[in-house]
């Protein structure tokens, strides 16, 4: 476990990268490198990071990066892991770094396959809840009620629960994170690095461009997502479910802030009705009922994990 004082001073996300102001994924990338160092091979599909890295012949990352097709992050990582193993090169962490569309929609097949094959890599979904790079279209990770350019009156369906889908693959490590809680994220990455097999980390990464809020509010938005219970910080390590701070103090509904505080800050929820808000609140409460049960009896759902 690192503390804020022990966090690496090295910067492998270089100055001059091309992310939007207030970009949650860019903050997450900076933390990723601080946690894992530069002995990393990054695999990036079509996503905002295609832009963030900068165009040829430049790069804003001080690690080798393989750009790859939209749906195939985990497949490319499988090949890289295999080749490094054949070449007997150790000590390199292969990281798949993909957006929510590239993970929960078009990339889910390759990811599921790689997880089932127990591929030794870390897969990170940085979830800004829409196809951001293409101009904010609805994805399977867009939440109910959110405006996107393809849901102009708000999305009518719920967000896909990707972390639990990955947990159902019985991989040794699944975690959620948010760049507003940097130490939690860094520690999860460091833990994932030491575990053999497929590790999946899902980050909620606020996006001022797509969520329609002021660029200075990214960290605040992430905090509110966690404090309202809309996004829970947890990890499932070898099948054992555990809520992390501060989510571990939010099982009692009274401790959770009303979701309105989170929703009201974002233009994308402007057309959400009171009825819609109540619906979301109800779903959040149901999720927490599930988290409470998992916490009390953490062997019930995800006991049969992992590597053979």
């Amino acid at each position, binding site marked *: 476990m690192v503390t804020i004082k022990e966090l690496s001073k090295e910067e492998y996300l270089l100055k001059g990268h091309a992310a939007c102001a207030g970009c949650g994924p860019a903050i997450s990338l900076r933390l990723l490198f601080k946690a894992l160092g*530069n*002995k*990393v*091979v990054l*695999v990036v599909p079509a996503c905002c990071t*295609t*832009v963030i*890295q*900068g*165009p*040829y012949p*430049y*790069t804003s*990352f*001080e*690690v*080798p*990066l*393989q*750009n*790859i*097709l939209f*749906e*195939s992050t*985990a*497949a*490319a*990582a*499988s*090949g*890289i892991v*295999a*080749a*490094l*193993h*054949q*070449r007997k090169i150790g000590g*390199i962490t292969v990281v798949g770094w993909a957006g929510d569309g590239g993970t929960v929609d078009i990339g889910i*097949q*390759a990811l*599921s*396959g790689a997880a*089932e*094959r127990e591929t030794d890599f870390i897969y990170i979904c940085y979830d800004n809840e829409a196809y951001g790079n293409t101009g904010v279209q609805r994805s399977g990770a867009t939440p109910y009620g959110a405006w996107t350019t393809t849901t102009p009156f708000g999305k009518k369906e719920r967000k896909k629960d990707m972390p639990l889908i990955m947990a159902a693959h019985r991989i040794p490590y699944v975690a959620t994170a948010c760049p507003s809680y940097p130490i939690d994220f860094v520690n999860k990455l460091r833990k994932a690095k030491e575990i053999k097999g497929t590790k999946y980390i899902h980050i909620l990464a606020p996006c001022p461009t797509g969520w329609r809020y002021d660029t200075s509010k990214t960290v605040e938005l992430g905090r509110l997502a966690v404090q309202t219970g809309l996004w829970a910080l947890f990890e499932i390590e070898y099948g054992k479910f555990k809520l992390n701070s501060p989510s571990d103090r939010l099982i009692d509904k009274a401790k959770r802030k009303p979701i309105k505080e989170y929703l009201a800050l974002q233009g994308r929820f402007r057309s959400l009705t009171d009825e819609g808000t109540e619906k979301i609140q109800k779903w959040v409460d149901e999720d927490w009922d599930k988290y409470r049960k998992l916490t009390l009896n953490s062997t019930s759902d995800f006991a049969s994990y992992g590597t053979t």
Partner: protein
Amino acid sequence: MAEMLIDTANHIAGYAAKAARVKVVAAYPITPQTTIVEKIAEFVETGKMDIEYIRVESEHSAMVACIGAAAAGVRTFTATSAHGLALMHEALHWASGSRLPIVMAVVNRAMGAPWSIWPDFSDSLSQRDTGWLQFYCADNQEVFDTILQAYKLCENERVFLPAMICLEGFILSHTYMPVKIPEQKKVDDFLPPYKSGWTLDINNPFSHSNLVAPEWYMEFRYMIQEAMENAKRLIPVIDKEYGKTFGVEHGGLIEKYKCEDADLILLTMGTMGSEAKIAVENLRKDGLKVGSARIRVFRPFPTEEIEKLAEQAQMLAAIDRHISFGMEGFLATEIKACLSNQKDRPLVAGFIAGLGGRDVTSGTIEKIAKKSLKQMRDGKVERETEWVDLKE
């Protein structure tokens, strides 16, 4: 010591991957390719191949895993057919655009709908413009030899492109033929360890294949075109070198048979080339001056060789196991394109035959030849494209 095997082309492809000392195989099963991946599985499980064998969940992932592995510095192999190849389509572009020397066996099978498991070239020829080298084989020995030759060629610094080795489903894939497997030491001398133009390297952190603006994109495409031209020059050289080492050559870009004095030359690909040779023998018994030219390499296309053949013949007949709907077979189109600026060019007749596995025998080809000879004597082509043995 070289070893004589009697085995199917699919198993032989497995032997070739083993002889080439590939390090990563990523593959997904599809009829009629399956016995390739089964053979490799057998080699891996019995300790005869020390590789990473990634049993992926789709052909798309098979190709992308090969891209990842080749980028991380090892020799890769995969195999597929028909719809599997079609599913790989965008990854094929990514492989060639990344200039990675991946070699893949394509067991030719017709595309659906309707379902067909039998051969034609509609699968691989649909991938004509993906920047892959395309070889078409006529027998099992050629499958083995071409896979080894392809690695040597693709890993040449003047090429650095991927290659597909095409063999027709069932006609070759499941047919037993004698094949000479050379001793490993000789293969190792012929084919040095893996070489590529670049590798993912933590000590040299590059961003590979990131966004390229219009001011550079065309230059990257031009480099692929140059690499194709280089490959065209190198293929006959490598085939000759292979012949010197192992005692068997396959004609470089085109396998020519009795073309020197031929009035009519039959142009084919794959196993139709073997049938064409028998047809030529039979027709010559009747005093007809017919020759056969089997296009062994479709990309890069052997333009200069076709021009040379055209200078000596009065008539060319292109027999396509493929149709580009709304036009004609690709082979006919390419041949006409080669000749368009030539003076006194011969007539070119196109024939569509053998789609979806319909048998193309030497008898079929004799019939095509006789029709072509009549058109030659009449001095005009009646129909640009004729469908052979079509039910009315």
